Structure formats: structure tokens, C-alpha cells
């Protein structure tokens, strides 16, 4: 008696593979729920709320000039944060979000920084953040003057700009007041919705600026 090869052996294997392929296809192509209320990708660029180093951390730097520069560099983490830079554009158009994309809708600076007379900031922005729409707000909502443009500038350039009254429109006491107590600057730590606040607190930032001024207001290169 001779051994006979089972008939249809290859066909069985082929049918099994085909069934597996169909099963995989059914699983892959099954109806999927649509994402609800998806956000624009740039909105997802969240940064963890960081703390500022306190002024006491810089006391160990013996050289006053080096300490002054170090203090300003720490304050620069706030100055160069998107919450601040978005309203210090180098064009007549603000930016928005952590990604600093062009403001939507396409608004312009206008004569007083509060928007063109035909489309004021107050068309959408009110005196406070509005949770229902997610639109941020503040009574002083406006752009910084073009002479105070910070976007695209190094921290050293911004530093020298701040110390130049012709461009900052502030003397040093006014500069300290602006940084430490101005309520629109303070919005950067209370931006509402899912916006990442500026590092630390306005008080900690103000203390760094005060210490920087006290140590000669030296600027990074």
C-alpha cells in the first residue's frame, strides 16, 4: 500500500489565508467614530507651566554685571514667551497660540494698537477672558507699539530696546511698573482656556526686573 498525498491540501491553506485576510480587512475597514471637536494642531503645542528662578539664586554671582545679565536672561524666559511675543509683532499683524501663527481673522494694528477703526480688537475681545468662546480678553487689549516689536529680535536687542526711552516710551521706573504691575502684562499669567501661561508669576518676574535694574541693567550680547 502506498501513501497518498491528501487531496486539496493547498486549497485548504489558501482558503484559510483568504479568510484571515478578509477578517483583517473587515476589522480595518469597520466604521470608526468621527473625532469630536478636534482642535487645530498648533493648539496642541502645550508647554508645561515653568517656574522662574528667584532673585536669591543669583546672589552667588559675584560680578554685578554678570549678575545683571543673568537676571535679565531669566526674565527673558517671560519676555520671549509666546504669551508676550504674540502682541509684540514686528509687522502690523499680531500672532496667536503657542505656535505664534498669524492671527485669525486677519486684523491689523490700527492707529492706537487697538485695531483698525473698521475692525477693532473689541469686536471679539472683551474686558475679560470669555470661557464660552475661549476668546481672551482684558480691558487694555491691544498691540505694543511697533517701536517695541520683539518678534525676531535677540534678547540682547530687546534689552537695549527696553532701555531706550525713544523706543520703549518709558523711563526705568515706568518700565518696572509696566513689567511688575501692568494688568495687560499680567494677563500673560492668566491667559484662560488651554493657553500655557508665562513662566512663574508676575510678582516673580517683577522682582527679577527690579533686581536687574538695581544691578545696572546690563544687557546680554
Amino acid at each position, binding site marked *: 500500500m502506498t501513501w497518498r498525498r491528501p487531496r486539496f491540501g493547498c486549497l485548504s491553506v489558501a482558503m484559510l489565508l483568504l479568510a484571515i485576510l478578509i477578517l483583517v480587512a473587515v476589522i480595518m475597514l469597520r466604521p470608526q467614530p468621527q473625532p469630536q471637536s478636534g482642535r487645530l494642531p498648533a493648539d496642541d503645542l502645550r508647554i508645561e507651566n515653568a517656574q522662574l528662578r528667584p532673585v536669591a539664586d543669583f546672589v552667588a554671582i559675584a560680578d554685578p554685571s554678570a549678575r545683571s545679565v543673568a537676571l535679565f536672561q531669566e526674565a527673558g524666559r517671560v519676555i520671549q514667551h509666546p504669551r508676550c511675543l504674540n502682541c509684540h509683532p514686528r509687522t502690523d499683524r499680531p500672532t496667536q497660540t503657542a505656535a505664534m501663527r498669524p492671527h*485669525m*481673522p*486677519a*486684523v*491689523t494694528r490700527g492707529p492706537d494698537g487697538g485695531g*483698525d*477703526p*473698521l*475692525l*477693532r480688537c*473689541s*469686536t*471679539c*475681545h*472683551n*474686558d475679560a477672558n*470669555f*470661557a*464660552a*468662546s*475661549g*476668546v481672551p480678553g482684558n480691558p487694555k487689549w491691544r498691540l505694543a507699539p511697533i517701536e517695541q516689536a520683539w518678534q525676531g529680535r535677540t534678547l540682547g536687542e530687546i534689552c537695549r530696546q527696553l532701555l531706550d526711552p525713544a523706543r520703549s516710551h518709558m523711563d526705568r521706573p515706568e518700565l518696572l511698573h509696566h513689567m511688575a504691575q501692568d494688568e495687560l502684562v499680567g494677563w500673560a499669567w492668566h491667559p484662560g482656556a488651554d493657553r500655557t501661561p508665562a513662566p512663574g508669576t508676575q510678582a516673580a518676574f517683577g522682582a527679577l526686573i527690579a533686581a536687574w535694574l538695581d544691578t545696572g541693567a546690563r544687557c546680554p550680547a
Partner: protein
Amino acid sequence: MIYTLHVNGEWHRVDDDGQTPLLWVLRDALRLTGTKYGCGKAQCGACTVHLDGRPVRSCSVALADAAGAQIGTIEAVGGAEADAVTEAWVARGVPQCGFCQSGQVMSAVALLRSNPAPTDQDIDLAMSGNLCRCATYPRIRAGIHDAAAALGASRS
């Protein structure tokens, strides 16, 4: 809490949360459904109304902040500018699907009240916050020019 709203020349008492967007008060409580919900984020302009004469996005105005102000909606917008815009809109067949048009009209009327002879640039600036998914922008711009011309002719 009860708020008193002055809408289209009439006083209304509304019992709602002060943080409710004005848009929903107009539509749901006062049944003024001409004002449309587009994005809910003040990004599209479909919900534009007039608050003390200036155009605002009603989705981003809290009921508490609107109380006591003069609120104007598309249902009652009037005056020479509104008439001119309406006539131009009809003559040009400006709307396509029409969903954004109440917001477009409210912004156009506000523009003509502040600038009776706007240039193309003025129109683009003033209307840039009002989106139209049918892309009727050329007809909107032409309609505003027509309305401005009609206003100019009626004044001369």
C-alpha cells in the same frame, strides 16, 4: 439671574446665567434666529450683531456684559445704510447658501455708517472677520461699493 436687554428697540427680561453667550440668548430666549451660529469662537463673524452701534461677535459677548446696551440684530437693522445694502445684495444676488449673510450684512452696514465711501482695502479690512464658505467675497465687495454709490447719490 434676571437681566434686562434692549434689543431692536424693545426691552426684554431674560433669566439666565450671566456668562451665557448673547448669541444663545438672542436665538433661544428671544427667538431672533436671524443671527447665526457659525464657529462659537469669534472666528467666522456669522453671529455679528451691533452693540451700542459697533459690530461685535455675539458668541463672545456675555449676557451680563450686554445688559443695558443697545443691541441691534439683522431682524431690525434699518436706516439708509441698511436699505442700501439690502438693495445691493438683492440686485447683485450676493448670497449663495446665505448662512453667513446676516453677519456679512451687519458688518457691511457698520462699515458704511463709519465710512460712507470705503475703498477696496477698507472693505477687506472691515470684512476680514466675516468668512463665507461659498466664497462670495467678490460679490460682497461689489455689493458694498454699490451700496456706497447709492448712498452717495441719495445725499447729493
